[in-house]
């Protein structure tokens, strides 16, 4: 079975429990009364207003469930540190379900640790599990590019200079998809809008993020969003420069209540409580799970006070199309910003198209370069 079809709605509707009964003895808590210990590991601080906070909010939701004990570690580097943190949770706390949440934990750290602990389930965020990898490893992620597309719609309505800005960490597929989606959303409003992107080169480097934001504001961008681990600096700096902001990872509206349009947020609380419930019920979680807005993997921040009625209407209409599963953000006719054709008229990439996970281009209208 192709894994995209394994992954989506089936998960949330609980059919995952179709999961073989053979998994029950393997995991071994069905019917037992000792609490299931679940470990969450974050690469940064869990109150970073960003990637890690989104996962920590998910962990907090799991903590409220019956029959589980949640343990957490923050600021765990993508080195032997994370291997040992996972093993420490297994050895000292008898953890049976682990959520190492940073992309860089996957290869080699999760892949090398999992075979040593077959009784433990490793659920990794953002990795690309494929056949042949350990079966006690699973990877899950969400189509948050659609959230950036919706961000782009509010940005397209808010901009007066027709220039919007994006502070990005690294030119990798997930980030490029977000940048492209943000611009294409804005271009749905006005095809003349351009998006300037600045790569900081690091996932978390506050000084460069502030410099990049200021540079974008200096260049005339009046709506700014980002893809870095902690968007706090970008949000506060941009709002301080009187730019509108669109959030990412978590809800950053408290940082700039007047300037915040909306934000693409992870909804890990729903995802994690479902996964944990599956395990508590004696089922197994699929090895490869993806989901979007419709599956409750991502959500949008409530629209801010600066969002116009026209923007709101277009935002809601597009969101409804996405929810109905009939929408492609990346669709033809489309060229990249060096002139190569990406998609012809009538062609499009659905959000779950695996090709999007190896994106290596910026679309026409994005000012910036992938290298």
């Amino acid at each position: 079975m192709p894994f995209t079809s394994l992954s989506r709605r089936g998960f949330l509707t609980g059919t995952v429990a179709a999961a073989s009964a053979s998994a029950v003895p393997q995991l071994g808590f069905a019917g037992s009364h000792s609490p299931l210990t679940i470990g969450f590991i974050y690469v940064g601080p869990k109150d970073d207003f960003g990637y890690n906070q989104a996962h920590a909010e998910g962990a907090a939701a799991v903590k409220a469930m019956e029959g589980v004990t949640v343990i957490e570690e923050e600021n765990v580097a993508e080195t032997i540190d994370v291997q040992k943190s996972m093993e420490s949770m297994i050895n000292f706390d008898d953890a049976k379900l682990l959520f190492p949440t940073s992309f860089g934990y996957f290869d080699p750290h999760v892949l090398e640790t999992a075979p040593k602990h077959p009784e433990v389930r490793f659920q990794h965020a953002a990795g690309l599990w494929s056949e042949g990898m350990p079966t006690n490893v699973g990877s899950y992620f969400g189509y948050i590019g659609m959230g950036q597309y919706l961000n782009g719609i509010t940005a397209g309505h808010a901009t007066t200079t027709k220039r919007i800005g994006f502070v990005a960490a690294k030119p990798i597929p997930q980030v490029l998809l977000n940048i492209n989606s943000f611009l294409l959303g804005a271009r749905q409003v006005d095809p003349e809008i351009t998006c300037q992107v600045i790569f900081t080169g690091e996932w978390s480097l506050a000084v460069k993020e502030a410099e990049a934001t200021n540079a974008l504001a200096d260049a005339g961008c009046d709506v700014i969003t980002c893809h870095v681990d902690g968007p706090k600096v970008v949000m506060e700096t941009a709002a301080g420069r009187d730019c509108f902001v669109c959030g990412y990872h978590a809800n950053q509206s408290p940082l700039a209540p007047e300037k915040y349009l909306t934000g693409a947020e992870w909804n890990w609380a729903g995802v994690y409580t479902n996964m944990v419930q599956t395990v508590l019920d004696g089922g197994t979680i699929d090895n490869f799970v993806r989901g979007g807005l419709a599956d409750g993997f991502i959500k949008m921040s409530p629209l801010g006070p600066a969002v116009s009625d026209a923007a709101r209407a277009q935002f809601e209409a597009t969101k409804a199309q996405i929810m109905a599963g009939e929408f492609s953000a990346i669709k033809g006719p489309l060229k990249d910003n060096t002139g190569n054709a990406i998609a012809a008229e009538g062609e499009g990439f659905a959000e779950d198209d695996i090709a999007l996970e190896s994106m290596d281009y910026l679309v026409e209208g994005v000012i910036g370069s992938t290298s």
Partner: protein
Amino acid sequence: MLPIGALLAGCAVFSLFLLLQGKSPAEFFALVYRAGFGTAFSWENTLSRAAPLLLAALCVALPARLGLVVIGGEGAIVLGGVGAGFAGVLLSGEPAGVALPVMLLAAMLLGALWIGAIGALRHYRGVNETIASLLMAYIAIALMNHLVEGPLRDPASLNKPSTAPLNEALRVGTIPGWNVHWGLAFGVVACVLAWVLIDKTTWGFAARIAGGNVRAAQVQALPVGKLILSFTALGGAFAGMAGFFEVAAVHGSANASLAGGYGYTGILIAFLARHNPLAIVPVAILLAGFEASSGLVQRRMDLPDATVLVLQGFVFMAILMSETLYGRFKVFAPERWRTV
């Protein structure tokens, strides 16, 4: 003697800090013992972490014997890692017996050039080696990012830009019977060799003289320039070796995770060890044990991960302040000064 006193003093101040937070110091140190040294797994955890720290500390300690404060070992580690990773890709068809030594040499050579250049800048141009090494570490990290995201990138490494994964045969395994990679053994041997060099050879003796009083050394016609170049390069070579093990034993390819901060922890270890290579071994293991316990401390006591860093900071301050106590008390009279 004095460093141990300073270590205890640092722990004492840290205990006050914990009490102010309403936490029990006894519980803290019990957890540190348990997670760092209490079980077989704890030892594996501690020793795995100690392996790169031993080599990183040598990169500080060796130049320090000449009076140079080099704090940019991180740069040599990441470049060493890139060198090893790239050499591994080029030699992927070769047998491990050929490829691994070449990868190790490539890593050590890059590290030696990088830190040796800092020694050269110091000797020939009078550039402050502390600032230069720190800034060059940032350059090294930027260079590493450029290489693994650009010319050396494996196109298949989508969301984590890396060099191509090493052939399984070119991975360095664990020491038989332990879940600890060979970097530990190389680190310990390197410390012993460095000690022999410094304490048992005329070259090391000359370095100690130059470190104690560079004018006296020049009057004696000691080759101060060659000493500076050789000691900085050797320190860099050891840091580069740490990069080799990070790539060949841990990551399997060179990527941004190489900048793991070992170079900076190495500074603390070298100072705690008073730049004595033999003392680096227990000190590195102690500090690695602290770091190994960080997770359990977070989980059991609900303390932030920075707690162990605060402890390291207090200990470091205590060590630096204790320097002023040398010679003030008979009991603390440094043995080295009596014997040299």
